[in-house]
């Protein structure tokens, strides 16, 4: 930008001014808001393909009983195909799983855990929330009668705790709503004052300028007379209003200084709108995400061979054959006309497979994210009782923590399970090297900095590292731009009789909707091929 600004010091100043505002999310309030008007929401596909015309006696073997595999099984079975599903785990759902009392888990590092949460408490250590526009996921929750409840994905009362900023607000828990009010208020004030003096080089007519001012005053909750930001009731009160004369109207809260807000870097949690997949309105199944898996299982469980591992996938001109080994160590071979393979590519790439070398090379081009979560059972819901935080996320820049999330179930109950960290990448690799007890200690030390009641309320923990799960070797596929351009189209196409489905074969990576919509797309392709045969 700098080298384009040679026309005068004034322009340069304004440009810098805008760059600073943009960094605050200030201008994006207006710009992204307008862009959003033309933005169509909702899954690309809201309903499964109609597979009409009959299955012509064809048989399909499906590898993996996660949401992709069970979606394919459900739709193909309904269309008349003979379906057999192979699942390595002793239960269905894949990553759609929930840890509650008695849930056993041994990871690749050899750490054994048994979940000791009280009855009724759980942690969704896999998927945990459903954006309202993931219509495909919501198609099946409705179809299978899985009750949903609100998932609080944004909470102005939740704290922001950033240690790496500077100034008096760094290393202090601050309510998100306070930071939002102040950062946007001051930004609006600057903009409003600038605009009122004709200081913006944007081509605003006098009429537009008046409207713009009106908007900015409203957006930042400014004093319309002097265009100043002096705080607003939405950020909270020093003394809350109530009955009679005392407290009566209460006492307004004092905003933080603009410099302190900027220095804190806590504004990092603010944006005009959320990311596409981080909608404020989210849903979760009542009682745990695995209720979705159980919904599928009620319909396709009879087709699943559990505790059975895939050892080799072969194909020829007349069909596919999959060599498997069951839980007792007995080998067998399943033959079919086609195969829909939903194994994560991280796992599939070490399975012997008859496929072209180009196809196999493409599988090597994707990486899988190390992902950690930990559930901490607290004997008292101090976040609700002492802090008035009902659900939502405490964002932090503490390495290995990332966010602490308060449960959206069991409001005002006695106990609750808090998500103590949700970390990805190298931070996750580091924490996962610890034994479960040390992971819990690490999570508690971090949470204690934000909630004084954290450690004393702790009862027990259950931690999960997706990269240390032998059936996943990572939380989700991560595509580089090159991988998307080169490898992804090759894999989406499949290799003759082998079709790939799963979140990794979608642009909704890591989401259940990606798994479901990918399965819809692949069964539709498979069915179209069958229809073309005599």
């Amino acid at each position: 930008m700098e080298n384009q600004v040679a026309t005068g010091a004034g322009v340069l100043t304004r440009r810098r001014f805008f760059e600073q505002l943009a960094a605050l999310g200030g201008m994006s309030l207006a710009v992204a808001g307008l862009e959003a008007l033309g933005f169509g929401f909702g899954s690309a596909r809201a309903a499964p393909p109609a597979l009409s015309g009959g299955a012509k006696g064809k048989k399909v073997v499906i590898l993996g009983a996660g949401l992709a595999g069970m979606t394919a099984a459900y739709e193909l079975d309904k269309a008349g195909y003979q379906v057999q599903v192979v699942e390595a785990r002793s239960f269905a759902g894949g990553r759609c799983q929930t840890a509650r009392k008695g849930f056993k888990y041994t990871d690749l590092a050899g750490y054994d855990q048994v979940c000791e949460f009280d009855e009724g408490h759980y942690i969704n250590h896999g998927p945990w929330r459903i954006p309202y526009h993931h219509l495909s996921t919501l198609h099946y929750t409705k179809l299978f009668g899985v009750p949903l409840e609100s998932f609080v994905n944004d909470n102005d009362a939740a704290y922001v705790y950033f240690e790496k900023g500077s100034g008096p607000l760094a290393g202090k828990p601050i309510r998100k709503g306070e930071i939002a009010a102040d950062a946007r208020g001051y930004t609006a004030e600057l903009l409003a004052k600038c605009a009122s003096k004709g200081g913006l080089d944007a081509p605003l007519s006098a009429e537009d300028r008046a409207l713009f001012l009106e908007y900015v005053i409203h957006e930042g909750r400014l004093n319309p007379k002097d265009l100043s930001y002096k705080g607003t009731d939405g950020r909270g009160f020093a003394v809350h209003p109530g009955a009679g004369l005392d407290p009566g109207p209460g006492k307004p809260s004092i905003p933080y200084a603009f410099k302190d807000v900027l220095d804190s870097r806590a504004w990092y949690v603010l944006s005009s709108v959320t990311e596409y997949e981080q909608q404020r309105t989210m849903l979760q199944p009542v009682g745990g995400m695995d209720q979705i898996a159980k919904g599928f299982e009620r319909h396709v469980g009879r087709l699943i061979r559990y505790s059975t591992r895939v050892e080799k996938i072969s194909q020829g001109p007349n069909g596919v054959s999959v060599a498997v080994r069951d839980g007792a160590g007995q080998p067998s071979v399943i033959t079919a006309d086609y195969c829909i393979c939903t194994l994560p590519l991280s796992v599939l790439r070490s399975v012997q497979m008859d496929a072209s070398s180009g196809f196999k090379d493409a599988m090597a081009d994707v990486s899988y994210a190390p992902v950690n979560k930990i559930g901490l059972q607290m004997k008292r819901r101090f976040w609700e009782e002492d802090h008035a935080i009902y659900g939502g996320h405490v964002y932090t820049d503490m390495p290995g923590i990332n966010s602490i999330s308060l449960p959206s179930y069991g409001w005002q109950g006695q106990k609750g399970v808090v998500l103590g960290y949700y970390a990805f990448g190298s931070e996750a690799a580091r924490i996962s090297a610890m034994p479960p007890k040390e992971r819990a200690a690490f999570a508690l030390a971090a949470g204690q900095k934000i909630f004084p009641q954290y450690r004393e309320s702790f009862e027990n923990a259950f931690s999960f590292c997706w990269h240390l799960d032998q059936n996943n070797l990572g939380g989700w596929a991560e595509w580089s731009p090159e991988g998307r351009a080169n490898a992804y189209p090759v894999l989406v196409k499949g290799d003759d009789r082998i079709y790939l489905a799963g979140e990794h074969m979608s642009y909704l990576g890591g989401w259940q909707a990606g798994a479901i919509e990918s399965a819809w797309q692949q069964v539709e392709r498979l069915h179209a091929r069958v229809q073309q045969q005599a």
Partner: protein
Amino acid sequence: MSKRNLPARAAMLVLSAAVVAGPAVAADPPGKAMYMGSCSACHRPDGTGVKGAFPALAGDPFVVGPKSQVVGRVLNGRGGMPAFKADLTDAQVAAILTYVRSSWGNKAEPVNPADVAAARNGGAPAQTRSLQAH
């Protein structure tokens, strides 16, 4: 904690780690503790990895091969391996790789911080992290 204090604190930590680690556990090479922290979850404390999931580092030709390639792998990641360029300093990457290249029967020349710095210059800048994913 103020931003100004951070580098000072970090330096103190490194210093005290060196002071403590030096005489107290004389047998431990400097990169071992960092290897145990950042790498051992997948590649295992004895460098044997996990078959079919995470490659063994003990006796692996790639590990004892050209320095620039090994350094690049740690900085940028690949497959299931995350990129460490945003989390580890040049000195830390060098110490870890020197440890890995001289342990469990591996015998290869040490990696210097300058080797890591050189590899970093060619690499893509670190991506900014999202607050949440999924």
